[in-house]
């Protein structure tokens, strides 16, 4: 009975996704904002992200007592503007997430396609590789490589690719396993279509939607992973600005300056939430039958 009555959707859900299946406008805007900040960062920041101004140190956000309109989100212990640093941090987050996802998607999808299509020894070898990779928890693995590789963006991307490619490989392998039994693939084989052409023309377009959905959903989770590494001091190194690094700095002043740990965290949360919502919408739109990711 209760199903028949149209219940008012919660306010938050209404704001974030207008109606069932509607385009998540707010989520898309947040992601667009992150990308714009990443591209145009240095021209958008009200102050220079690394500029130290000890006279302005520990200014609270503008709306709090003692805040000033000069620094909307306040300043840190060295007087650096938090808003400018968050905008600068968007560049690192977006950069790492985009590279990491594209590379793990390419590696994972190629291996997954090969495993699903060729079967036999190739499948067994790739599947064992996936098993091994998945049996090493990603955070300890990240620490292992953080200990031996020079720190920086390239290392963070490498570490993320190492633990994320398996998702793409498993997804594509499963899909290709069922695709290769379809008539049009079998007929293409009989007709003598070259294997690379089958991959490129017939398999790839069929898994592209799923890859796009997974990539969108993982954009946020990669940002969280990178923030975690940088928070531990194993990821992006100062003077480069990252949201995780800002949280690590702010942690030392947790009892005097609440804005230092809330603001960068909100930036992480907003980007991750936005990517999850957009990913959900993409999945419902592109793959309405299975919704299996």
């Amino acid at each position, binding site marked *: 009975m*209760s*199903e028949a009555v149209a*219940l008012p959707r*919660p306010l*938050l*859900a209404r704001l*974030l996704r207008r109606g069932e299946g509607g385009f998540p406008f707010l989520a898309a805007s947040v992601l667009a904002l992150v990308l714009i900040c990443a591209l145009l960062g240095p021209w958008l920041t009200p102050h220079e992200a690394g500029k130290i101004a000890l006279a302005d140190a520990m200014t609270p956000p503008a709306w709090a007592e003692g805040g000033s309109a000069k620094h909307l989100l306040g300043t840190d212990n060295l007087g650096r503007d938090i808003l400018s640093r968050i905008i600068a941090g968007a560049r690192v987050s977006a950069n790492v997430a985009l590279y990491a996802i594209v590379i793990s998607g390419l590696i994972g999808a190629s291996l997954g396609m090969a495993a699903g299509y060729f079967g036999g020894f190739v499948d067994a070898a790739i599947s*064992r*590789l996936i*098993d*091994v*990779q*998945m*049996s*090493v*928890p*990603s*955070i*300890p*693995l990240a*620490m*292992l*490589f*953080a*200990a*031996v*590789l020079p720190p920086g963006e390239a290392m963070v991307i490498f570490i993320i690719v190492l633990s994320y490619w398996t998702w793409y490989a498993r997804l594509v392998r499963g899909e290709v396993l069922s695709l290769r039994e379809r008539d049009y693939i079998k007929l293409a084989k009989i007709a003598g279509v070259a294997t690379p052409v089958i991959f490129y023309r017939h398999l790839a377009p069929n898994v592209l939607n799923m890859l796009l959905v997974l990539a969108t959903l993982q954009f*946020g989770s990669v940002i*969280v992973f990178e*923030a*975690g590494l940088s*928070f*531990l*001091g*194993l990821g992006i190194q100062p003077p480069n600005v990252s949201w995780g690094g800002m*949280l690590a700095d*702010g*942690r030392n002043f*947790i*009892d005097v300056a*609440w804005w230092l*740990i*809330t603001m960068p*965290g909100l930036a*992480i*949360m*907003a980007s*991750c*939430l936005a990517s*999850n*919502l957009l990913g959900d919408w993409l999945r419902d739109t592109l793959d309405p039958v299975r919704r299996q990711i």
Partner: protein
Amino acid sequence: MRAYFVKRVLQGVVAIVGALLIVFVAQRLSGDPVALMLPMDAGEAEFAAMREALGLDKPLPAQFGIFMVNAVQGDFGDSYQWQAPAMTLLLERLPATLELALAGLVFALLLAVPLGVVSSVHRGGLVDRAAKVFAMLGQAVPGFWIGLLLILFVAVELQWLPAFGRGGLSNLVLPAIALGWYPVAAMTRTLRSSMLDILDSDYVRMERAIGLPERWIVWRYALRNAMVPLVTMIGVYFANMLGGAFVIEVVFAWPGIGRAVVDAVFARDFPVVQAGVVLAALVFVAVNLIVDLSYGLIDPRIRHAKA
């Protein structure tokens, strides 16, 4: 069942060997370990002697052989910082990490089970909708940030609970919430959907027809069966929590293996890092194995099917 058991154990062994191979490769990437072990002013002869003692002058496959033989005995070398066997150091800290991960799991279940059951029974109700929003937000918030916020509000502002260290139950609460936060959403959704399936099944309808109290049906009969998919997840999440604990331990200064490994990374104490990764992989594989093999205990259908 026996064949299945053997197959799963073999898979576990392959995974561990693979993990050891990854660790070995990383070790070779790290450059010359001898440089870290000898004093700055050591001569070329001392270097050569040390290399020979460690087997570093042999070809790579032989080195991997030596590494494996030592690894199987739990020997990853001595910690450069503490001058004690790396694995022993970590095993001393393992109980603290297990305690934290277990507490996180308990917190997640305490929240997820009632939420999942109530949102399936009152579909579309207030709890169901609130749980959805909560899940959406929860999936987007990193656990270590939750930890920082908990320290800020509960420990610093309200001063209800201690923010750092290990000790009594009061020390355990905040890190457990930070660690157990993430899986709540997924667990709630899994339990909700399996409860919905089961509440719609013939035997539940039968129980209703007999006139059993609804509370009995839901909490005693339906929940027990609906727990099966959740138990699968519990293994995976418990194993993930051991990894996630690495970050949470740093936030709360918790004296577990995670913090030891992070410290070791900064101190370039490679044996401890290696031992930590292998230990994490071992526990991860073991937990998943135990979960896979224990379905039969919960669901007799699986037990008899494979017998």
